């Protein structure tokens, strides 16, 4: 069984692929359409700015490949920025269109389009401060620091999801300045509290996303990754 880790020129994929290997699976870092479409599971990591990432995906044609993998029913997991890319749009640096596999948008903490994961506003805001160059501005409610960086606790909304099966709520490692407001409440599997409920894990069908870094989140992170990989394994059999 092979897990494709989509390489579209954004960020370091070493830790993610090593984590996959450590769990006993073969991780293939690749930008090749055939390799991705032939894989049993697909990981879409990502660090950096939303707009740049989408540009890289489009330029390499990998946007269509990821869409195809999702449509084929292959288990797909977006991590951090990779999760945000799965959604319709982001207000990072003006408005940028995402892959649109899941409905919803990424907004800046405390920004004009802000809302909580559990009570999303409908009016899209025009933000425009870069995640990367955030200079410690106090942007979140209650003067919380942006980026939201560090270990925060997950609250499971759908403990019966196969991704959360057998796991207990605990802390995972976040680093982000934008957070996602999913349009459908039922896509939200887990939230964390940072001034308000913040989207932490999403899932619909074979498509999943984690805002935090499971590969940097100790035992719980590895267990979440293991659950995803066993979904891929199950589908393979």
């Amino acid at each position: 069984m092979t897990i494709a880790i989509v390489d579209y020129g954004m960020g370091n994929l070493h830790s993610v692929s090593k984590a996959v290997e450590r769990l006993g699976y073969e991780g293939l870092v690749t930008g090749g359409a055939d390799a991705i479409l032939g894989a049993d599971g697909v990981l879409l990591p990502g660090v950096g700015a939303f707009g740049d990432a989408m540009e890289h995906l489009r330029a390499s044609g990998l946007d269509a490949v990821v869409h195809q993998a999702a449509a084929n029913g292959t288990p797909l997991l977006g991590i951090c920025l990779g999760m945000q890319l799965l959604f319709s749009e982001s207000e990072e640096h003006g408005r940028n269109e995402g892959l649109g596999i899941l409905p919803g948008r990424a907004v800046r903490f405390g920004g004009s389009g802000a809302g909580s994961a559990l009570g999303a506003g409908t009016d899209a805001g025009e933000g425009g401060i870069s995640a990367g160059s955030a200079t410690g501005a106090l942007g979140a409610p209650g003067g919380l620091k942006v980026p939201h960086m560090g270990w925060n606790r997950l609250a499971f909304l759908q403990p019966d999801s196969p991704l959360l099966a057998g796991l207990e709520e605990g802390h995972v490692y976040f680093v982000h300045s934008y957070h996602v407001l999913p349009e459908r409440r039922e896509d939200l599997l887990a939230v964390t509290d940072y001034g308000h409920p913040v989207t932490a894990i999403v899932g619909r069908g074979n498509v999943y996303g984690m805002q935090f870094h499971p590969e940097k989140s100790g035992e719980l992170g590895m267990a979440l990754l293991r659950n995803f990989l066993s979904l891929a394994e199950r589908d393979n059999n």
Partner: protein
Amino acid sequence: MLAKRIIPCLDVKDGRVVKGVNFVNLRDAGDPVELAALYDREGADEIVFLDISASNEGRATMIEVVRQTAGEIAIPFTVGGGISQVEDMKRILRAGADKIGINTAAVLNPQLISDGARRFGSQCIVVAVDAKFNPAWGEWEVYTHGGRKPSGIKALEWVKEAESRGAGEILLTSMDADGTKDGFDLPLTSAVSRSVGIPVIASGGAGKPDDFYEVFTEGQADAALAATIFHYKEIAVPDLKRDLKSRGVEIR
């Protein structure tokens, strides 16, 4: 709410951990990768490697340590020591480190903070500050070159500049408290925490669990770093975390 972090720090020279490490359950107490993996298993929230190699060969070896560590541990780790250019940062981040610590080079060339933050994001840039109380000023002064040279810069002003240039965190070492085991420097830590809006990692002086409780409450630190007390098992990370949790501190 974010959990307070416990961070063991490893001094690495030419690819080997130096300065006392006394672990019975290690094959090789000098192997930084093995030691980092042990701390990960024990529940450390992050690891800091301080590269004290004096040669280029030693620094090249550090890249290999970083690469191996990234494959072995599932928590974030920071690498500091001898980093003076954006290219150095790139090499270390590429090898799998999550954050870069800069100290003397940032004081000599503050633009390095801005350049690093723009290139890799603020979350990657940790500005390490060695501070010592200057009685004539009635406040703390920044020291460089491993604490050997006074810079003439006020610590509280420097941390604000570091933040405005895009530093994501401050790793604050009290030279007055370091090595005493009498507790963290609470006045310094709380003064710095109040001066900036970015997380502050307190370092220097840890001797007992109480010291950590105090630096997280009175000192308002977001994280606490220590070396020898962890390496010599004077305090075990799981015991420390249990103690802090029982006293109401948010801990993973």
